[in-house]
């Protein structure tokens, strides 16, 4: 997700490794590059600045722990600061539905950010929690916007009402609310038209809608590819409409997602969910720690853990992903992420060299080339999130579907799963053996 940022941070911090002390000079130098990396990841200039300041303060003020190298210490500080900025560890990001029904959630945001799709995704999500859902479409402006929501609702079999053409959205909201209430909806998701924050009339419309509907939550839907404007958009929407949370969409791409940091940095709004695909199941609860782990990169964290283990027999830095691998819970999602990161990193020779032993052989044995990595990715892309997390459910018909979806043969899908299971076995073996000298990932940024 944040491949390039990860690579940069790692390259930069690697330079710090091996140095004895965190001096003001080398910290400042490293942080200059970290700032650059953050900016390239679209983190807002101001947010990047305060992030750097805070890391610097902590880095200089902290004692380098026994057996821990300065570089590791630094990564640890950056990592935890990033988690903090993204919302802190252990806080549940989920919308609280415990209020008296109907609980109304209103979605808003710029044009094309993903509101309508996300409304349908949330319907699926909450329904699986046993709630009766109703969808409310309040976009009479965009051609076929109501029809889009209606089709999605039909696909998932959820009651839906949309504003009529040329019906005032506020009137429509009131009308549909009473209809859905009468129909017994417990959670109502209100989809609104995309708008620019400079459009006073439309911003006022949202304000009156909010007053009339009195939603439990007003959620800003933001495209993860957003650049510096994330700050302007987020503060304009949240300032004007008292947003209570945000949803970040299109994280299935390779946007470095600095918008996530920016959004939190200026509005403090909790990011509740992330959209990771066009399918209606492609929604996940937001995890700050996971996100920070992604920013820093799983492989790197593992290699860090390895070094820390070598050095001191104990790591300060142990991100969720790294831990998952060590505990043998290495999913196909992790596998794909790894592939993506590797693909962006230079020649295949290097790439194979960086893979764990057995896997390395498995790959070289097959004379794998760049395009087969692309193929691996395509196959994993064609799986549902559930399948990626639990490949054991991949029966014949699922495998055929994946083959079709990715334009590959079933044999290739089978081969992929074999490679994956080998990798997973290694992770398990590793867990048994303990850490020292047996870590699966050779250091990646030497």
């Amino acid at each position, binding site marked *: 997700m944040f491949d390039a940022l990860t690579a940069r941070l790692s390259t930069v911090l690697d330079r710090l490794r091996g140095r004895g002390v965190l001096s003001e000079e080398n910290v400042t130098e490293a942080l200059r590059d970290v700032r650059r990396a953050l900016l390239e990841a679209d983190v807002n200039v101001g947010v990047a600045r305060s992030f750097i300041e805070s890391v610097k303060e902590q880095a200089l003020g902290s004692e380098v722990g026994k057996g821990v190298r300065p570089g590791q210490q630094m990564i640890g500080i950056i990592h935890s600061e990033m988690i903090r900025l993204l919302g802190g560890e252990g806080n549940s990001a989920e919308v609280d539905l415990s209020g008296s029904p109907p609980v109304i959630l209103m979605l808003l945001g710029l044009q094309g*950010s993903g509101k309508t799709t996300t409304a349908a995704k949330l319907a699926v999500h909450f329904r699986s929690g046993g709630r009766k859902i109703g969808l409310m479409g309040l976009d009479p402006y*965009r051609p*076929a916007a109501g029809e889009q929501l209606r*089709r999605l609702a039909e696909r998932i079999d959820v009651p839906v009402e949309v504003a009529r053409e040329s019906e005032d959205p506020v009137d429509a909201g009131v009308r549909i609310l009473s209809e859905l209430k009468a129909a017994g909806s417990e959670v109502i998701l209100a989809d609104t038209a995309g708008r620019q924050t400079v459009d006073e009339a439309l911003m006022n419309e949202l304000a009156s809608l909010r007053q009339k509907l009195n939603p439990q939550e007003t959620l800003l839907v933001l495209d993860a*590819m957003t650049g510096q404007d994330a700050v302007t958009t987020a503060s304009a929407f949240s300032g004007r409409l008292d947003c209570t949370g945000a949803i970040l969409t299109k994280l299935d791409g390779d946007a470095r997602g600095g918008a996530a940091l920016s959004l939190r940095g200026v509005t403090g709004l909790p990011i509740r969910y992330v959209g990771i695909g066009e399918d209606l199941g492609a929604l996940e609860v937001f995890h700050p720690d996971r996100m920070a782990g992604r920013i820093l990169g799983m492989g790197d964290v593992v290699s860090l853990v390895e070094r820390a283990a070598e050095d001191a027999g104990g790591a300060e830095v142990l991100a969720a992903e790294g831990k998952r691998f060590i505990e043998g819970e290495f999913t196909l999602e992790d596998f794909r992420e790894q592939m*993506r990161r590797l693909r962006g990193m230079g020649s295949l020779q290097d790439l194979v060299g960086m893979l764990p032993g057995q896997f390395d052989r498995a790959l070289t044995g097959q004379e794998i080339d760049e395009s087969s990595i692309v*193929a691996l990715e395509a196959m994993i892309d064609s799986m549902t999130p559930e399948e990626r997390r639990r490949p054991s459910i991949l029966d014949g018909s699922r495998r055929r579907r994946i083959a079709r979806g990715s334009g590959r043969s079933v044999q290739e899908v089978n081969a992929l799963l074999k490679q994956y299971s080998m990798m997973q076995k290694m992770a398990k073996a590793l867990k048994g053996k303990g850490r020292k000298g047996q870590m699966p990932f050779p250091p990646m940024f030497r």
Partner: protein
Amino acid sequence: MAHLRSRVALGLARTRDLLLTDVTDLFSGKTALTDDLLDELEDRLLEADLGVDTVMEIRDHLQNDLRAKKASGPDEVIAAMAEVIERILTPGVPPKEIGADLDGRPHVVLFVGVNGSGKTTTIGKLAHAYRSAGKKVIVAAADTYRAAAVDQLVVWAERAGAECVRSHEGADAASVAWDALDAAIAREMDVLLVDTAGRLHTHRGLMGELEKIKRVLAGRLEGAPHETLLVLDATTGQNALVQGEEFSKSVDVTGLILTKLDGTARGGVIVPLARKLDIPVQMVGVGEDLESLMPFDAHEFTAALLKQETA
């Protein structure tokens, strides 16, 4: 087009004010370009999504050029910035005007881009522009994936007075494109605009589908598609660079369209994009109605960005 121009100017006003105010404040009364001043300037440009490399280039330029000339007034600084930016944004070959002689009959234009960038809407606007120039236009609803994408395009086609070829949801996108080109040839249309589903460039399978659409068009009519336009949302940050590269790799993009310039986003990312890829920005979208499309003009864009009076 005058009113459209002022709308872009309005949309860019924030950037402009920001840059101008800051630059003016920063530099007025100063006699030397200090590093602090350059740092500040750098931040302002970064906030317009110009990206680190381009901003560095501008910084270097200012440093060398202005220091040599011992010049440091706000006008000189802005002029120097404008020079670099405009140079980057000026394509080798100027884009053709809508309504000028078209290659191919029908002239086939393929629209591509990530999800929600504004492809379908832009097709509506462009169909309208061609219709206004007296061309016979047909559109192909080759987004067979997204819910009601076809219905959306049908409305735009009606508004623009264009014909539309469609199939059912879930149909093969490439066959819709083929059928549409067939129809365009049979009905002697001047222009065929092909809408495609939004897709992230990271999804290999979907990029493959796009390549297939392009192949099929070329197979039906030599030289088609005559243009492949990548539609970019002005709010997009540095990811636009990868989008540009990846879509180019797949379908050889011939032009860019920058949408949603009527909002607060500045679209500054087209500067590094133009720097990296030699693809001209063709048009900009400045609203949600038929008229809100205008030709891109590097000089105007730069001037608006930096609030320098157009000569």
